[in-house]
């Protein structure tokens, strides 16, 4: 059941915006992801720097997967049909 792990591996090197459960939104290049969907982002940019100066002196970060609410992905980086197929297979294997 690691479909999303493999999905995120296809996005390594791409720019994403990770929105956390504390409402912090961080834009960065996906460097790596693991089975728990922990992510490391490089070249980060906090979306609201004025409100949240906590990460001004930081270029990259490790984000614990359990704290992620959304990951925003550029549409051009995703083949939605392939993803949908993968989901079907994931469920088919279980039945």
């Amino acid at each position, binding site marked *: 059941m690691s479909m999303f792990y493999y999905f995120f591996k296809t996005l390594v090197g791409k720019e994403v915006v990770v929105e956390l459960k504390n*409402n912090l939104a961080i834009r960065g290049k996906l460097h*790596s992801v*693991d089975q728990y969907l922990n992510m490391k982002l490089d070249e*980060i940019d906090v979306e609201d720097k004025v409100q*949240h100066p906590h990460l001004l*002196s930081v270029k990259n970060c*490790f984000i*614990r997967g359990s*704290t992620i609410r959304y990951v925003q992905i550029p549409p051009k980086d995703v083949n939605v049909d392939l993803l949908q197929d993968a989901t079907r297979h994931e469920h088919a294997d279980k039945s």
Partner: protein
Amino acid sequence: HHLTPMASTLAEWTGKTVTVITCDGRSIIGQLRGHDQLQNLILSNSHERVYSIDAPVEMVPLGLYVIRGDNVVIISELDEDLDNKFDLTALRGEPLQPVAQNVL
């Protein structure tokens, strides 16, 4: 134990100064001395940076700290050169909100 790619990130940062943001919205800075697969952390010479909207940044010395991985949101390598460019007395910010568990 199989070393996941993510564990190597924390291994690279051992000995370096890191900023940890915790579930209750705190910012803790210290030298990363140890970690494990669950992101339990050992920080030495640590202090908390308290940001507020109407007062300068407050520094609260903490010393040797163990942070349980459950409470970790973000771990970042602090760029000391970048950090020194900022005037902490002038910096203002909203306190970070807490992360509620098992909710969106």
